């Protein structure tokens, strides 16, 4: 039957008939299709801003399987703003060290240990069902505080018609069909996006001819909390590469690269998986520890994106818009950044405070980010799975040199881990009139820093903000009805570690930053008048170009 293609880890929004199903089609400012991490993040962000949002999901909760497990600092910062960050960091496994092996030899080690002075760790590992559940929990909490959001489970969208001033969605439910109208639709319905199919839109890119076996095992093991990656693993039957990585609840992610011509059904046989896992664990521990197979899966992947993420009143976000290989943790993390980018723009447009063209910048910025993610992901994949004899010769040359010579180690690519995109030179960016640090240039997401009390990013709560350092913030005359908060900081009194000065001033004595609701920097100056800031705000809201 429609809408029950996978088992649930948690039932979070059981189907319940609503009055609208017996009425003529009701209008909604925003309908989100798909209640995964990206859809819920968009909905939560919109609802917290007071824009009503309806989420339609074809299931009744969160699917089983750990799936995405690596969540980046930027994702945690976004989740913190949405009220779900503490739960995630509390449950997740924090890790910093990665080791890369070639056969038996360790050839390279990296440490993601962030510089001091960030509230969130570089990465946590957390099973995707937890991540999704914490977002839904935060949404429920926001609803209890009157945030206008609603999730309807087992509501399967079966038709979409885009009209001049709205979108009509046909929905199938256990009680039969009904329809809703939406000013805007956000399609967060995954890599196989039914909405994309319904609209006949293309999803082009590169297919990588390789199969990867995931075995998540539950065991009490003394392995350190590190990411271990093997090229040409020394244990039997492990394929061309292998990965070992810890998750919460004593679960370990093990990943084997099996190659292209395999018998999927045979490889998923649990005895066969156990033989591989036994060989791997005994080679490392000297014996086979007790373990249970928690979840297994074979996946292939593609690197591709839609040409445009915006199609009129329908906006694609997350896997429906772009797909990457898992090396680099750029799937779910980039999807959450899509949500972060889109929600404030939709909110301003729905409220009539910004023109509809602001939504074009969602496409511009996130297509740019998707290209960056696909580039990194493709490069990692080309290193892991050389496509020709010569590319394998060079790959192996890098690995053998890396054992002995430091210069080759940065070329070893087992995945370049997700970092947020900087929107360099794009339409919404204002002036950069500060000879300031590159990391806080216009287009970059604000870098965290400890303040006298708490952290900088905690002060950037989702509104436009004027961040004035060592200078009083100018009072704006007219911000067009858009809320702007002023944050005045002094490096004398508010900068206990000096990080604020390093990250936001560099050699400058003072600075004024205009920060967007998604914490990306819209403009910065050494000196700015109210008029300068108002002009940059109008640009950041597409009110002028």
């Amino acid at each position: 039957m429609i809408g029950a293609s996978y088992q649930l880890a948690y039932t979070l929004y059981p189907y319940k008939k609503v009055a609208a199903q017996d009425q003529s089609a009701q209008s909604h400012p925003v309908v989100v299709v798909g209640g995964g991490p990206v859809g819920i993040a968009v909905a939560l962000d919109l609802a917290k801003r007071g824009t009503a949002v309806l989420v339609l999901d074809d299931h009744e909760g969160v699917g089983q399987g750990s799936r995405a497990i690596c969540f980046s600092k930027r994702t945690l910062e976004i989740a913190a703003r949405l009220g779900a960050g503490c739960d995630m960091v509390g449950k997740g496994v924090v890790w910093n060290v990665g080791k890369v092996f070639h056969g038996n030899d360790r050839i390279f080690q990296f440490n993601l240990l962030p510089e001091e002075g960030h509230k969130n760790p570089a990465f946590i590992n957390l099973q995707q069902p937890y991540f999704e559940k914490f977002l839904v929990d935060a949404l429920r909490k926001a609803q209890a505080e009157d945030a206008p959001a609603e999730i309807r489970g087992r509501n399967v969208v079966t038709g979409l018609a885009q009209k001049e001033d709205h979108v009509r969605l046909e929905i199938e439910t256990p009680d039969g069909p009904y329809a809703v109208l939406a000013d805007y639709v956000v399609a967060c319905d995954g890599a196989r996006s039914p909405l994309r199919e319904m609209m006949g839109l293309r999803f082009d890119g590169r297919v990588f001819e390789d199969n990867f076996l995931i075995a998540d095992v539950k065991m009490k093991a003394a392995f350190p909390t590190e990411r271990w990656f093997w090229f040409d693993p020394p244990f039997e039957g492990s394929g061309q590469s292998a990965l070992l990585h810890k998750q919460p609840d004593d679960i370990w992610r093990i990943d084997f690269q099996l190659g292209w011509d395999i018998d999927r059904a045979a490889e998923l046989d649990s005895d066969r998986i156990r033989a591989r896992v036994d060989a791997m664990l005994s080679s490392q521990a000297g014996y086979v520890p007790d373990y249970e197979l928690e979840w297994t899966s074979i996946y292939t992947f593609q690197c591709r994106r839609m040409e445009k993420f915006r199609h009129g009143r329908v906006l694609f976000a997350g896997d429906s818009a772009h797909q990457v290989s898992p090396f680099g943790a750029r799937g779910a993390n980039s999807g959450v950044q899509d949500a972060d980018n889109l929600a404030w723009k939709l909110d301003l447009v729905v409220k009539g405070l910004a023109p509809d063209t602001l939504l074009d910048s969602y496409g511009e910025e996130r297509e740019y980010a998707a290209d960056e993610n696909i580039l990194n992901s493709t490069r990692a994949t080309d290193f892991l799975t050389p496509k020709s004899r010569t590319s394998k010769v060079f790959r192996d040359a890098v690995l053998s040199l890396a054992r002995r010579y430091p210069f080759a180690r940065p070329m070893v690519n087992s995945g370049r881990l997700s970092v947020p995109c900087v929107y360099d030179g794009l339409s919404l960016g204002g002036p950069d009139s500060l000879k300031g640090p590159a990391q806080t240039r216009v287009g970059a997401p604000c870098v965290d820093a400890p303040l006298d009390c708490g952290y900088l990013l905690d002060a950037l709560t989702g509104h436009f903000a004027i961040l004035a350092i060592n200078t009083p913030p100018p009072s704006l005359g007219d911000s067009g009805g858009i809320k702007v908060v002023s944050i005045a900081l002094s490096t004398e009194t508010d900068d206990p570690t000096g990080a604020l000065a390093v990250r936001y001033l560099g050699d400058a004595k003072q600075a004024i930053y205009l920060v967007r609701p998604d914490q990306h920097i819209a403009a910065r100056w050494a000196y700015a008048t109210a008029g300068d800031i108002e002009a940059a705000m109008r640009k950041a809201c597409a009110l002028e170009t």
Partner: protein
Amino acid sequence: MGLNLSPNISDPDGFYDELLAAHDGLTDVQSDALNARLILILANHIGDRQILRDALSAAKEAQATPDPV
């Protein structure tokens, strides 16, 4: 300074000899691997991306030129 395509190695015959000697007794597969390691070591030593790019083009162009008859 850009990519130097003028003679720059003193005792060119001696160097050529050493280059070939490094491959003595190797199979084709071992020689390919040695060449790859050598390219990577030299490329790192040069470091300058523009010079490396010019070197790649120069190498490709040399192949594109028909052999003199």
